[in-house]
């Protein structure tokens, strides 16, 4: 393969982001779950919930560390790999980027304090309160950085005159049309994913024959929120579809292989596309795309043929979209089944198949996050700044990006393996039952 700086820059950026978002998602969602457990523990004076919060926090530090260092990497790589983009977009989106670092700062300070003051305050509620800035900080940094990404999809708040950005309005640029749906979807899906990951841990132990009520409580305190967040994710996802139809119709059309502009458009699930734009082997849900795009079956959905060929996103994003939506539905179903059983058939709520499904929900939700992001990003191609700057014009001219791909690839393997090994050791040699006993909390059933 001949050297192609744009291609290599894209590969390196994709690699870094794909690795980072796994940890970033956990970083945004898990503090919320820790706060919930600690709050329940204090409210009911229940040592099990308090221990849950403690153990989650311990594991969380490892994921945060990897999240922080890979976040630093992508932050710098933006300038290293896309210097022309940053030079131009820096004029427009410096504000949310800058605010993101403040949110990150705020979170880092209070996380440090939280981790090292477990037994330092006489009033344990004070310690719980320290989590408030952590949750605010992590969710706000997700907000700001997603606002930057949203801007790349729907740039506004400036005029382009002879290649120069004038009349810049930083707030208008930051609160661009893509912000509400993007931020909403990112936040609730991060909460959802974290809830499923923690639920999967509890389910794993229950499957292995551990019967302690600690694990049952852990399952309960994770799967109920998981259901709530799954529903919220689906609802915001629907709004995102309506947003796309209005502002980025080419992304929606490519996702659905929708070529001719028309109403009563069907939603296509999976299938195959031949060279003459004929779809075969797909499941067609009549009107669903029109309903997704505009709530009514009669809504006219803009087709891909309306766009010049060099401004169309690649058509494989259809599969990404399908996988994301399917996984979202499966996850919703898993948590729904648990909640229904726990309410009406409590005898069946720990049956093996459900527990297995819950264990599976952790990797599935992470896959959904990855696939969803790739869909969102590739769906914006060929633009890096939609309508203004193409990706090919923005990459670095450096001849060494391919070497850097190797170096960073090795780094991510090292960090990934390291994190898994350390997390495993951390909990394997120190089961919750023993820790409960050591803490002398036997009186709590």
């Amino acid at each position, binding site marked *: 393969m001949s050297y192609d700086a744009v291609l290599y820059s894209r590969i390196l950026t994709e690699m870094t982001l794909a690795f980072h978002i796994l940890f970033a998602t956990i970083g945004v969602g898990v503090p919320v779950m820790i706060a919930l457990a600690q709050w329940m523990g204090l409210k009911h004076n229940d040592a099990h919930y308090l221990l849950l919060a403690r153990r989650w926090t311990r594991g969380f530090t490892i994921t945060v560390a*990897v999240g*922080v260092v890979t976040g*630093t*990497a992508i932050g*710098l790589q933006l300038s290293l790999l896309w210097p022309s983009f940053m030079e131009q977009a820096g004029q427009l989106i*410096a504000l949310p980027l800058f605010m993101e670092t403040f949110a990150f700062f705020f979170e880092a300070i209070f996380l440090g*304090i939280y981790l090292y003051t477990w037994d330092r305050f006489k009033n344990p509620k004070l310690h719980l309160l320290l989590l408030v800035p952590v949750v605010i900080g992590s969710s706000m940094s997700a907000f700001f950085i997603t606002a930057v990404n949203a801007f790349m999809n729907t740039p506004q708040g400036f005029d382009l005159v002879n290649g120069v950005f004038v009349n810049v309005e930083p707030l208008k640029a930051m609160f661009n049309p893509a912000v509400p749906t993007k931020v909403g979807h990112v936040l609730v899906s991060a909460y959802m994913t974290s809830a499923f990951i923690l639920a999967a841990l509890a389910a794993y132990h229950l499957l292995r024959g551990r019967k302690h009520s600690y694990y049952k409580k852990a399952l309960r305190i994770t799967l109920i929120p998981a259901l709530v967040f799954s529903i919220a994710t689906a609802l915001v996802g629907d709004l995102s579809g309506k947003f796309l139809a209005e502002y980025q119709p080419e992304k929606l059309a490519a996702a659905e292989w929708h070529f001719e502009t028309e109403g009563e458009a069907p939603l296509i699930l999976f299938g195959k596309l031949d060279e003459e734009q004929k779809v075969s082997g797909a499941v067609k849900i009549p009107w669903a795309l029109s309903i997704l795009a505009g709530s009514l079956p009669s809504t006219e959905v803009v087709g891909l043929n309306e766009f010049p060929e060099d401004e169309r996103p690649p058509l494989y994003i259809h599969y990404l979209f399908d996988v994301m939506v399917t996984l979202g539905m499966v996850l919703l179903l898993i948590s729904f089944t648990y909640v229904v059983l726990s309410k009406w058939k409590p005898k069946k709520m720990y049956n093996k198949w459900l527990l297995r499904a819950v264990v599976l929900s952790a990797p599935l939700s992470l896959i959904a996050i990855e696939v969803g992001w790739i869909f969102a990003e590739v769906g914006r191609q060929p633009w890096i700044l939609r309508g203004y700057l193409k990706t090919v014009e923005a990459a*670095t*001219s450096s001849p060494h990006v391919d070497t850097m791909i190797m170096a960073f690839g090795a780094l991510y393997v090292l960090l990934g393996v390291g994190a898994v090994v350390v997390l495993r050791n951390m909990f394997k040699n120190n089961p919750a039952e023993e820790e409960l006993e050591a803490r002398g909390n036997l009186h709590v059933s």
Partner: protein
Amino acid sequence: MNLELLGITVLWTFLYGYLIVASIDFGAGFFAYYGKITKKDHLINDLISRYLSPVWEVTNVFFVFFFVGIVGFFPSTAYYFGTALLIPGSIAIILLAIRGSFYAFNNYGSRSSTAYLFLYGATGLLIPASLSTALTISEGGFLKVEGDKVTFLAKELFASPYSWSVVVLSIVSVLFISAAFLTYYADRADDRGARTILRKFALLWSPPTIVASFLVFVSLREHNPEHFHKAVSEYWWMFALSLLCFIIASCLIYIRRNFGAAFILVMLQFFFAFFGYGASHLPYILYPHVVLHESVTNETMAVALVIVFVLGLLLLIPSLYLLMKLFLFDAEYVKGKKQ
């Protein structure tokens, strides 16, 4: 003060903050590893991790803050530095990533391992070297600009005496700053054993620091005469003050008195040197391609950034104060009596 000067001053102050907190961190990693292999770890390593654990992430943010800030205020720096720094910048990121995560793996994770400590110690000396490349490049002479293509002249950088003198200075000052701080921290902890070792480190690294500083001056005269003359004619007093602070600080450490004041003087030593260097570098950010007033972002954005910066500080200062109060000024914690 106009906006671009305000902007660069703010950013320079944050870079200075990073220089101090990161030096403590980088040097501490080296000392911890050295302590381990010379079997003195029981004396100093607990003390070091008591300080580092709650703050390492905050240290990292100082750095992020600087580079996001400079791209925001001066977008064209992203263009020139971004192209030039792909290799040194990537090396720095990789080292920082290994360092940060392995620190967490080691400290919050299972057990302490010599391999982790080695990575931690070694990266602590390599990171300042790779980050200092950015400062070296800013002196000019390492970039070829033709039309809209920027080429980084790596060979020139490797062959330049100036670039090596900066590398040497960054490494020895990291060790000096760190040792001076940890001596103070050990003193507060009433930990005689640790204090003795760390004081020796501080005294050991004090003369090389000043020698390296002079080396940088001498090689700068060759590399960028314009900058050198501005530094010695207009800002000589700042470097003189820096030298004075250095002498008093070293004396205090030598006679075992007022370690707190000594560390503050070390901070002032670097403050004067760093700001003297920065001020004499102006109006260039990257000589001669990026000039301060030409490269600043549009005014609306600059104003917005300044406003956000002030609001952010209102949030940060009390939080940082709380952090220091809990882990730096709380004698019981420093002594290891509080968990």
